[in-house]
């Protein structure tokens, strides 16, 4: 502490010019030199730290991203605008949405969109796996954002019990207890999870497409995401419906009510017609 203070005092003293008594002209010269040095320092720092205007115009895209940009300029530019900056009233900016968002939207066929409506629906995908990767690379290099981990099986070490609890707390409000999906307001909906792959579920959680909230890694950790995917992929899809051959779509009591009238009552009314006809 003391040594620090000493050194500091010495420095200040030297700056004030205590030792000795320099001439007036020499003091003025020193001030001028110091001013020039400070200006150069500030200017230099600005030049180094500030993003160059020229660099923004031409980002050094990787080769995959260049291919992706070519695809983008053909298929996506109408709505998302040049350099993916968005078009007012047509499509949002894609700067910063990340590869996860591209992966979800394009691999489920939602993008390119057929038309503007309440919500983009899943349909047969337009791009191949490689093309999706190229588009994802392009959007990723535009402004960063969340990325899905590599690999097709993202639930290898997931725990279905934890995943089930997390699913019921976070997902079942919209996607329903069975993963069959559900309605939201004004024609929007949470889609069925039946056709979704591991990567699509993971990217959806990361990017929060359409009406879905974002479940970032600080809310649901990557391990928990693996648990949830494990629950969806193994328990919800492959439990084999122990209760019977027909699961009635697992839509809850509404289809059960339909079944009791269409099957139970109809069968028994025919039985009563038959019995009464035998008099």
């Amino acid at each position, binding site marked *: 502490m003391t040594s620090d203070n000493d050194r500091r005092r010495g420095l200040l003293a030297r700056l004030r010019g205590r030792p000795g008594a320099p001439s007036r002209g020499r003091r003025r010269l020193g001030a001028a030199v110091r001013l020039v040095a400070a200006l150069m320092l500030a200017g230099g720092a600005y030049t180094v730290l500030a993003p160059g205007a020229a660099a923004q115009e031409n980002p050094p895209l990787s080769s995959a991203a260049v291919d992706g940009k070519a695809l983008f300029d053909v298929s996506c530019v109408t709505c998302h605008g040049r350099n993916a900056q968005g078009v007012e009233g047509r499509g949002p900016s894609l700067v910063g949405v990340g590869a996860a968002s591209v992966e979800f939207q394009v691999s489920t066929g939602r993008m390119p969109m057929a038309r503007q409506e309440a919500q983009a629906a899943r349909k047969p995908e337009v791009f191949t796996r490689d093309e999706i990767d190229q588009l994802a690379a392009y959007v990723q290099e535009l402004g960063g954002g969340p990325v899905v981990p590599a690999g097709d099986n993202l639930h290898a070490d997931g725990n279905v019990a934890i995943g089930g609890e997390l699913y019921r707390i976070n997902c079942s409000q919209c996607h329903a207890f069975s993963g069959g999906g*559900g309605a939201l307001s*004004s024609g929007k909906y949470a889609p069925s999870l039946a056709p979704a792959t591991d990567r699509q579920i993971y990217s959806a959680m990361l990017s929060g497409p359409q009406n879905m909230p974002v479940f970032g890694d600080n809310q649901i950790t990557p391990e928990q995401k693996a648990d949830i995917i494990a629950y969806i992929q193994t328990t919800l899809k492959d439990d084999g419906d122990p*209760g019977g051959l027909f699961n009635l779509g697992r839509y809850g009591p509404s289809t059960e009510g339909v079944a009791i009238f269409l099957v139970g009552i109809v069968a028994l009314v025919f039985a009563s017609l038959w019995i*009464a006809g035998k008099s």
Partner: protein
Amino acid sequence: MKRRKFDVAAVPGNTARAVDERFQVSTPLRRLLNKVFPDHWSFLLGEIALFSFIVLLLTGVFLTFFFEPTMTEVIYNGSYAPLRGTPMSAAYASTLDISFDVRGGLIMRQMHHWAALLFMAAIVVHMLRVFFTGAFRKPRETNWIIGSLLFWVGFLAGFTGYSLPDDGLSGTGLRIASAIMLSIPVIGSWVTAAVFNGEFPGTIIISRFFIAHVLLIPGLLVALITVHLGLVFKQKHTQWPGPGRTNGNVVGERMFPRYAIKQGGFFMVVFGVIALMGGLFQINPVWLFGPYEAWVVSAASQPDWYVMFLDGSTRLMPDWEITIPIGEGYVIPPLFWPTVVLPGILVAISLLYPFMEARHLKDYRSHNLLQRPRDVPFRTGLGAMAVTFYVILTLSGANDVIADKFHISLNAMTWAGRIGLLLLPPLAYYVTYRICLGLQQHDREVLAHGVETGIIRRLPDGRFVEVHQPLSAGDGHGELDYVGWVVPKKMNRLGALGPAIRGFFYPIERPAEAPVSPGHPPVEPRPEREEITSGDTRP
């Protein structure tokens, strides 16, 4: 050694004599066994409800052997892996055990649930039959009231049973029930606190619902059903009008042996249908809902179909909150109207309908003959109106599933339900009324002019007339009175075809003879058949 001869054929007689000598039952039994029941398929609908109630009792008793009705928290460690290690109530854990670890437990649980749905469905269908045929009229108003009460008590039985497994779905339903109770002005919070023993969900509600579900409500149901059937015996069953049937007699089959055997067979059929549904159709997969937690609510959380109309009325109700300026303001929540007031009105109307109709028609006589729906257009119209109202509410109760699966906006579904609830019932009344009048008019027309034969005759002046077969002798005008029973409208019904052979389901009709070709001489008509003459020669 002398062998004693054992006469097998004499055993029933000897046994019966032995019983009668001790208990003197032959006189009352003879009366009972000779009781005559009219036979018509629509009279068997109530039996579906009765038989599914028996299945409910049998399967329910099985379930009580394994169900643990407490809310004690346990850690599940059964054979359903995706829930292992999850904390849950003992009620839910034992439901999972019934489903996965008890032999035959899952099919028993599913049969119990399907039988419950069938019980309520059969009650409603039976009630519609009774309503549309006027079977509730004097002297049977009491039985109509008991039948209506059976629906509402069955409703309670269903709801308490739905709540017992303590899974995510049933807990959500229970939460809604507690909200409904809370919405009642003044007494709401006391009622809720009394039922749940404090704040929702408390720790005792499952035990209370259990005793209500397995003892109190079934006891009430058994009592009501007994009185219901006893009154059918005492007041005798209604019958359709027709040849030989009057307001003062009953034409049908004796209770024993034919009617009893048929009913026994029908019980087996109902049991079989329930067992098939329990085995083939998965119902209420509680393992997917997870244990009930207040913060877990799944999409498509609906009650069973007979409660769904209340869910629908709640979904359609606008958010009209009434604040009464007493003290700091007393609020009547909008939930109160669709879930307390509406069912209250429905119960009152359904109980009092026989008296309201008798008063309206000034008809205080006893009626043992049924009426065809077309003959009382206003009642049929009212019934259609009520059914439309109920169906719209029920569909609205599932409007999120319908909106999602048929790609309709949920908001559009809600507004369609609101507007439909006001517009469609009167429309249904009008359309039904007109259809009834049309059907009646056609019956009268056939009675007056005869049955269409399909033969077109050309008159000498070149006109074409259709030949009608009159139903009576004479000139065919006004000979037959309209009595409210089926009028034959096809020549086949008048014996134009040869005698029908009894088929498995319907009589098999055979063409009488070989077809007449134009070049051949006409085939002689068979002597027992009447000649077809022109009904009239209208221009």
